[in-house]
């Protein structure tokens, strides 16, 4: 495989980076005459290049084994770090997915961000974002992946903080950065340890290293847990889940990327690290436990939200929780499939609600209604996206779950229960949002709403079509989503009727969602226990308060205490020494009297003392 397009695959992330750098003259205000639009067009063009290059490479590499390109980066003493790039149908496919969704999101942003004066800065950040994501897709080096995850953290911070003048945005950007950073630092600890224990830092080497690993089990457990922490933060899993919800304050086109691809990027790294987790059963269990808690908790939180973006962002955490469970069980192919189906459906849902927010400049679902006849394309997008997410017959998630239970994998009843729960609540939530937003009587804010213009409609409709066609991908191109087994061959399911039960759970969720009494102006239930649960879910199980009372409080008070100690105790001691010196000098100066006798006396006493000391002390 010496094809030019394949060999230069590593250029694809660079395209977006170039696009990002090219926006600088506009975002810095050096070019004002043209307005910021050319920056946007340049970025779209570069992303289009990335798309084309990616698809040519993908078609050339089809049915070929994966290969690695290695670039030497750093050589210091006994440490060699090389950055390697993996070119396989899986990675180039991921690259293509990133470039594709990014292209659609940027096209969408052309409409959504139309009136924003710092459009150039936005596109610069999006290019940066896309570069990091596509780099992650083809990276074969844990070191490089870590670096790119950190770059993602930074660009999330900058994108969420895009409208930096708003107070909620300021805290959201800060929380997003710091929460992810906690995960990143722990991941870095894991990587440093891994490298110190002699593992090469490329994913392909990791596998062989694990097989001959000399690690004791305790160390392996800590290592495994540390490596989980990074993806945990990226995928917004409990206990690092809140940033994603807050990050909804950022611009929506970035939200499309964030909820579909960025969270997947974390899971992608997790999947690649999966061989290491085999070393430690505790780490695998931790993955399953964290995933389950998040899947259940986030599904419940989503049901009680009234901000249209937040109703969906919690569900992102829930689905990524399922991916964690899949990785913990070792079902890597299912994890890939889940990510793929979720990414496409979720980005479509976010495009749909973005159109609504753009038109009525409001995010509160209780103030919307009757939009179906006014925004048909948006409505279609929402319905298709929802169907893709909850597992309705011909769409992506249905096939994913079918595969999970088709007998190739060791699955048990609790997993079925978990899936049914997530699916039912997801269906309920989406039905509830659909009723509030699209059905019912038009509300004052939604009475005269037009459908969005073409820059937003075109990507939305394209993505609708992609969601509908999505299920064919794993059928037709099995190697895209799985490096190992072709997924087509079904065997006898271990859990019978599982698919029927899952579909039934979705149906149940829909029915409950339709039967639910939804008030608009007055959304609080009268019964006390209902209120309790509503508050519990709506305020995210009070996790934020718990943080404020524990870790945030601890860091703040320790730092205040330290600063106080520094100022008054450590520096105080220093100043005390100074004062003592000054005062003793002041006091002693009265001895300088000018009388010769006094000086002679002083000298005599001192000499006497010295003589005594030398006489008695030195024998």
């Amino acid at each position, binding site marked *: 495989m010496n094809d030019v397009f394949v060999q230069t695959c590593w250029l694809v992330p660079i395209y977006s980076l170039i696009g990002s750098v090219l926006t600088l003259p506009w975002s810095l205000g050096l070019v004002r005459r043209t307005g910021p639009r050319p920056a946007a067009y340049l970025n779209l063009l570069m992303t289009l290049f990335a798309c084309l290059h990616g698809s040519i490479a993908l078609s050339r590499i089809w049915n070929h084994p994966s290969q690695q390109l290695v670039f030497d980066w750093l050589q210091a*003493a006994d440490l060699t770090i090389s950055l390697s790039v993996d070119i396989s149908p899986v990675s180039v496919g991921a690259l293509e997915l990133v470039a594709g969704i990014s292209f659609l999101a940027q096209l969408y942003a052309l409409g959504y961000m139309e009136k924003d004066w710092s459009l150039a800065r936005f596109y610069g950040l999006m290019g940066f974002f896309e570069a990091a994501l596509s780099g992650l897709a083809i990276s074969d080096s844990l070191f490089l992946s870590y670096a790119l995850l950190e770059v993602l953290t930074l660009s999330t911070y900058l994108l969420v903080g895009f409208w930096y003048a708003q107070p909620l945005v*300021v805290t959201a950007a*800060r929380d997003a*950065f710091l929460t992810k950073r906690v995960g990143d630092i722990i991941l870095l600890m894991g990587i440093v340890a891994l490298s110190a224990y002699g593992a090469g830092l490329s994913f392909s080497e990791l596998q062989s290293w694990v097989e001959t690993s000399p690690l004791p089990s305790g160390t392996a457990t800590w290592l495994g847990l540390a490596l989980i922490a990074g993806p945990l933060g990226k995928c917004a899993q409990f206990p690092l889940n809140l940033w994603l919800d807050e990050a909804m304050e950022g611009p929506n086109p970035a939200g499309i990327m964030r909820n579909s691809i960025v969270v997947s990027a974390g899971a992608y790294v997790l999947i690649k690290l999966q061989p290491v987790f085999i070393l430690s059963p505790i780490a695998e269990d931790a993955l399953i436990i964290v995933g389950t808690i998040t899947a259940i908790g986030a599904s419940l939180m989503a049901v009680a939200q009234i901000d249209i973006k937040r109703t969906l962002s919690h569900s992102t955490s829930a689905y990524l929780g399922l991916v964690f469970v899949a990785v913990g069980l070792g079902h890597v192919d299912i994890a890939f499939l889940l990510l793929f189906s979720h990414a496409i459906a979720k980005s479509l849902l976010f495009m749909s609600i973005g159109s609504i927010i753009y038109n009525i400049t409001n995010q509160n679902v209780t103030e919307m209604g009757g939009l179906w006849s006014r925004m048909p394309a948006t409505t279609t997008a929402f319905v298709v996206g929802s169907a893709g997410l909850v597992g309705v017959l011909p769409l992506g998630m249905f096939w994913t779950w079918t595969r999970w239970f088709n007998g190739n994998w060791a699955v048990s009843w609790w997993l079925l229960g978990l899936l049914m729960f997530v699916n039912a609540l997801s269906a309920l939530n989406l039905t509830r949002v659909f009723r509030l937003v699209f059905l019912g009587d038009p509300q004052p804010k939604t009475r005269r709403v037009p459908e969005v213009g073409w820059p937003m409609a075109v990507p939305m409709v394209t993505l609708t079509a992609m969601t509908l066609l999505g299920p064919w991908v794993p059928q037709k191109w099995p190697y895209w989503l799985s490096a190992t087994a072709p997924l087509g061959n079904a065997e006898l399911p271990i859990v019978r009727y599982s698919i029927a039960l899952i579909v039934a759970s979705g149906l149940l969720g829909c029915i409950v969602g339709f039967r639910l009494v939804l008030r608009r102006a007055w959304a609080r239930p009268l019964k006390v226990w209902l209120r309790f649960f509503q508050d519990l879910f709506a305020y995210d199980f009070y996790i934020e308060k718990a943080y404020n009372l524990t870790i945030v409080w601890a860091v703040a008070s320790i730092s205040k205490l330290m600063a106080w100690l520094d100022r008054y105790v450590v520096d105080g001691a220093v100043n005390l020494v100074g004062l003592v010196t000054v005062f003793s000098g002041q006091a002693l100066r009265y001895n300088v009297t000018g009388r010769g006798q006094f000086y002679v006396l002083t000298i005599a006493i001192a000499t006497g003392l010295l003589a005594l000391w030398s006489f008695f002390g030195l024998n």
Partner: protein
Amino acid sequence: MLSALILIPFIGAGLLAVLPNRFSSSQVKWVAIAIASLAFVVNIIVGYQFDPNQISFQFEEVIPWIDGIGFNYHLGIDGLSLSLLFLNSFLTVLALMSSDRDLPRPRLYYALMLLINVGVSGAFIAQDLLLFFLFYELEIIPLYLLIAIWGGKRRAYAATKFLIYTAVSGILILAAFLGIAFLSGANTFDYETLRSAGLPFEIQLVLLIALLIGFGIKIPVFPFHTWLPDAHVEASTPVSMLLAGVLLKLGTYGLLRFGLGLFLEAWSYLAPWLAVAAAISALYGASCAIAQQDMKKVVAYSSIGHMAFILLSLAATTRLSIIATICQTIAHGLISALLFFLVGVVYKKTGSRDVNQLRGLLNPERGLPVTGSLTILAAMASAGIPGMVGFVAEFLVFRGSFPIFPIPTLFCMVGTGLTAVYFLLMINRVFFGRLSDMVTYLPPVGWGDRVPAIALSIIIFILGIQPNWMVRWSEAQVGRLIAPETVAQVTVLNPKGD
């Protein structure tokens, strides 16, 4: 060749001091910049002729000075000094560029700035213990005057505190140097000769402790650090840049060259304690920084936290960790200089450094958008975001120290995590949000206030993406430093011979 590095700024300082009065302040500034750039060019030539694969000292110059006690004017460099020399002459040029255009008493000011350059360069290339000490002391006096004359409100207090602390540090170092020279009976201060002196362990220990406290004050390590925040707050921006960028590095360089180099046996005995001290210092600096209200103090305490990483990797004493020491020294020098410069710009334009007063400075029309963006970049570099030099350096520090001292290393990594916390808090308050009414209609930031920042940022990026350019100078010499008896075994590490 090496003498030129000392003589050019030295003669230049003298020249500036006697310049006729009719030269305006900005003309004096340009003369000073020209002199410093000349020194930088000489430095580049030295770097060009330097052979990174040669293990021993290069460009040696020996002139006997006081024969009776074996004191020679002995210069020479190896890879460790060379990178620090580069840092010093580069930052001096930038610090001169960022000096105010209409300073009072410009001739004295620029002469003193050049004298600092003389002292630091001299200390980095001196191969004689007493000569190092002379240069080390030489740099104190101009710095004292720079703080005491051009400083802020409490400048007298800060300058005196600095002077006393550093004088104590100097006395301890001198005591240790005299101790090794006299107790070994070698009657020389020559570095190479003393390396093979072979003192008894107890004496090594005593001398090393004196050196540790002496250089510990300079670095500074908790609890000897309290002079630093005061000095930084009162010093003007260029002086802060030099102080954080190169002067603190004399402490770590001294420990590396003399502490580790002369007393390896005692050093390895004390190393676990040093690692613990480094971890404490890192966490202490970070947590103090979180609570500060003055932007300059935040950066000053962050310096304490980041200098501790150098101590950690010095303590680990592996080949990788010594290389990491150099990297972190350079990284911290560049990043802290950039941060102090940017804080200086904010102060110059708004008249305040108080995080409670400033708000929304990122505003593109009436705020300081470019300065703000660069500050975010500098903060991210300091927090160790990949792609910038801080990440490479910290990764090498942690990777180099982890196998030897895992627990202190993990605590230091927590310190890195906290870096993001305090810088983000500062940025969020100062640059995000709505522009506060107090600071509207700021004077525009000219290119003079941007060029040094942009130059630093570019270097930070370049070294972050291509760290080999930072590492390759010192590769060969490191092995010799930590294992003197195995000189013969150290092979050429870079067979590609780039």
